[in-house]
């Protein structure tokens, strides 16, 4: 009674509506569907939730306001002075990653952020945006970011390459952190599910572990969205205030 385990099959992209324009495949895939659902839910929460705009908020308005306050507080605390104008960007980033992660936990659903290309697209936008903001605000003086103050010239020869390396590795660590967390979590769920399917009455143990894992995955979904947002704010502060 050997059941074949295919824990990585859940990450396959499936075309729902095949479309081609001039040889380029732009099919509507399961990934695109989940992204659309995430955007739709976020829009519904914020638009419908604040429609009545009561002074004493009802349930949905409370949730919409709490999510806004959470991200606004995050940006004010971590991105420093003059970063309020970036709140819409950070809010969009946080809510999109949060909803994409959470929607992946629905059974038979697909986790959008478990593909490196999706997380890398988000991370490279943050990286290039923050670098451009830094250059626009400080001009060539922005390169002072890699030369810490009060360091003797001998150490600078060693320190500047290290600072440059740790700066350019940021989009990769941002992307891989989110991608690896989602991949590892969902792969573990699939593997323990496979154990449960192949072991008969003893399945209570893998299923118990899976229940705990889903709880952990909920925490990780929230935490990874929070970490992505807070790191974006910290990188913004570095670019705006040069340490």
């Amino acid at each position, binding site marked *: 009674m050997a059941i074949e385990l295919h824990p990585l099959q859940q990450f396959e992209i499936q075309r729902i509506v095949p479309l081609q324009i001039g040889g380029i495949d732009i099919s509507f895939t399961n990934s695109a569907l989940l992204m659309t659902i995430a955007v739709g839910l976020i829009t519904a929460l914020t638009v419908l939730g604040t429609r009545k705009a009561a002074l004493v908020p009802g349930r949905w308005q409370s949730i919409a306001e709490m999510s806004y306050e959470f991200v606004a507080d995050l940006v004010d605390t971590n991105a420093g002075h003059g970063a309020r104008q970036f709140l819409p960007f950070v809010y969009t980033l946080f809510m999109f990653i949060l909803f994409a992660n959470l929607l992946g936990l629905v059974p038979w659903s697909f986790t959008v952020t478990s593909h490196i290309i999706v997380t890398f697209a988000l991370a490279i936008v943050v990286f290039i945006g923050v670098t451009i903001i830094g250059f626009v605000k400080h001009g060539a003086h922005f390169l002072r970011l890699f030369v810490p103050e009060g360091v003797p010239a001998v150490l600078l020869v060693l320190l500047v390459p290290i600072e440059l390396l740790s700066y350019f590795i940021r989009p990769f660590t941002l992307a*891989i*952190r989110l991608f*690896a967390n989602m991949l590892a979590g969902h792969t573990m769920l699939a593997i323990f599910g496979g154990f449960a399917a192949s072991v008969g009455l003893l399945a209570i143990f893998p299923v118990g572990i899976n229940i705990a894992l889903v709880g952990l995955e909920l925490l990780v979904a929230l*935490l990874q969205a929070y*970490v992505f947002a807070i790191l974006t704010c910290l990188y913004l502060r570095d670019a705006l205030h040069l340490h």
Partner: protein
Amino acid sequence: MDLASAKMIGAGLACIALVGAGIGIGNVFSALINSVARNPASQSQVQPFAFLGFALAEATGLFGLAIAFLILFVF
């Protein structure tokens, strides 16, 4: 040794990186528990840092896991 066996061994070795993740996360929460025990009023200020530190420590372990998957399924 053929490529498939070498891949298995390589992926297994890459997972040793998760030891670092375990130690790091233990350190972060040990510091959190210590500081809240000394000064319970600071909990709301220290806890966000604890969660940030946990995520960053976990991330380095998962970089190792990502290499393991890379070895297994890409090369």
